């Protein structure tokens, strides 16, 4: 068991991790920037250390300051949360190099999954279906032409060192391809210092479905899937589990492929294997593996009854997986919505400010993960996530009804939040029957701009 845990994060996820550690009897140390001195994670942790000024680069991303805080407080372990340093291989290496335990996978595993080409190769080698495309880096235009037989048009030319939507070009014809390929090479070299490219078929309308895995370095299990198709600018806003789009047969196949990948790379901790699911073709394709706990993990906890963060801490403490695959079963349906400090009436403009009033929803099947309290001053320096509202019910239909009930109970005074968006989405016929894809919300937002403004 871990002896003392430093939580290298802030906001709701720091609170979530502190709670899991305290439930296991592990003392916790919070770190905070000058802007977060009064925040909830600082209040709840057993100790707290100021690691620098408000800018994340000088505090939450400052590896030296975090290592010093861990040493000074006698911690034996560090949990990175999500965002900030969570998928920074050098950070994992630095923690391990300092003789501490990193709650997550090794630096090598993070590096392998962080490089798009090596992740894709690892997935293909483990038998996970990948989007049709090049086996690895494409060595020049001539080799690229050969890959076109696999992909057809439109085809995506992607920078191996890219990510987050950067370094992507789409070609609709051979002429366009022959023009775009050398340009993409030059651009990738300029932008990332690495001209390496790979190619992928453009998958049309698809859902975003991801599988939660837990692994201990040798064994791995899955905790079923989440569907996160409702996205704005590639950011998930609404997540649910299970996905209603999958047949039982395909669900088993999908989840088994995620376990195969986790085992193949000797993964340790909690991870998520992300896929695109093409409804029409009834096929799924690997996109990437996230080597961290994810924002939307509570929907999986709701339907499986597993405390994923507690399991991460146990595995990091040297325990073998306690849960067998046969013990994991799905009960009911869960939905999470992300309440951000953004004004949906004004193109989601950020809205930092003071929480003047707070009424938190409760009752059966309702969970509210947040760092809010009355009087809290939301700082402008970090991301806009204020709270996650998670509802759980016997069926998807009942979960949506419960979501509306809980949203009506929720009151966050003094700030603009995304609550009106979720009330409108919960009432939408397409959302009600789950007939959505990853680009659906963008179109809906244009059509419903007037309703959100009112």
């Amino acid at each position, binding site marked *: 068991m871990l002896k003392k845990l430093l939580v290298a994060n802030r906001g709701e996820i720091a609170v979530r991790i502190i709670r899991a550690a305290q439930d296991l009897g592990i003392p916790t140390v919070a770190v905070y920037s000058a*802007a977060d001195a009064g925040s909830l994670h600082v209040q709840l942790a057993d100790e707290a250390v100021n690691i620098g*000024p*408000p*800018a994340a*680069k*000088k505090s939450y991303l400052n590896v030296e300051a975090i290592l010093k805080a861990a040493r000074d407080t006698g911690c034996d372990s560090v949990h990175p949360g999500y965002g900030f340093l969570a998928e920074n291989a050098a950070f994992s290496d630095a923690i391990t190099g300092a003789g501490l335990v990193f709650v997550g996978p090794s630096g090598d595993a993070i590096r392998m999954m962080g490089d798009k080409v090596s992740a894709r190769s690892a997935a293909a080698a483990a038998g996970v279906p990948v989007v049709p495309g090049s086996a690895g880096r494409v060595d020049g235009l001539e080799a690229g032409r050969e890959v076109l037989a696999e992909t057809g048009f439109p085809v995506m030319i992607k920078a191996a060192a890219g990510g987050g939507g950067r370094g992507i070009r789409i070609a609709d014809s051979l002429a366009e391809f022959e023009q775009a390929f050398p340009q993409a090479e030059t651009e990738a070299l300029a932008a990332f210092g690495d001209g390496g490219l790979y190619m992928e078929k453009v998958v049309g309308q698809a859902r975003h479905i991801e599988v939660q895995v837990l692994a201990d370095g040798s064994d791995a299990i899955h905790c079923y899937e989440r569907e996160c198709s409702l996205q704005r600018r590639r950011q998930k806003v609404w997540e649910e589990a299970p996905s209603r789009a999958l047949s039982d047969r395909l669900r088993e196949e999908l989840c088994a492929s995620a376990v195969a990948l986790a085992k193949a790379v000797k993964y340790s901790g909690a991870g998520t294997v992300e896929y695109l699911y093409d409804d029409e073709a009834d096929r799924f394709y690997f996109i990437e593996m996230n080597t961290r706990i994810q924002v939307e993990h509570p929907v999986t906890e709701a339907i499986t009854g597993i405390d994923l963060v507690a399991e991460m801490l146990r595995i990091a403490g040297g325990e073998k997986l306690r849960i067998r695959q046969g013990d994991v079963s799905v009960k009911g349906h869960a939905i999470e919505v992300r309440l951000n*400090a*953004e004004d949906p009436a004004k193109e989601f*403009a*950020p809205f*930092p400010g003071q929480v003047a009033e707070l009424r938190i929803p409760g009752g059966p099947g309702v969970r509210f993960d947040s760092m809010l309290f009355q009087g809290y001053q939301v700082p*402008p*320096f*970090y*991301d*806009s996530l204020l709270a996650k509202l998670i509802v759980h019910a016997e069926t998807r239909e009942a979960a949506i009804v419960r979501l509306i009930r809980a949203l009506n109970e929720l009151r966050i005074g003094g700030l603009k939040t995304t609550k009106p968006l979720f009330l409108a989405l919960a009432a939408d016929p397409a959302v009600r029957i789950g007939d959505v894809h990853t680009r659906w919300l963008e179109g809906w937002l244009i059509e419903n701009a007037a309703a959100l403004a009112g």
Partner: protein
Amino acid sequence: MAQILSPLPGTFYRSASPDQPPYKADGDAVSAGDVIGLIEVMKSFHEVRAETAGTNIRFITDNEDPIMAGAPIADLD
């Protein structure tokens, strides 16, 4: 002398990205509508523009400093 005030709370940047030169150096002339910096609010970036012209801008707020809405960014003659 006029002051350019921050329209938003957040982090102030003097250039478009770390490897770019600053939009304006101390002593530069400024036309109305010129971008003089960026404010990062909750990971989104907003341009700060000068409302009036001037012959000599002098920054009060440093690159990457936290700033409150209404706080002065620069003096402008």
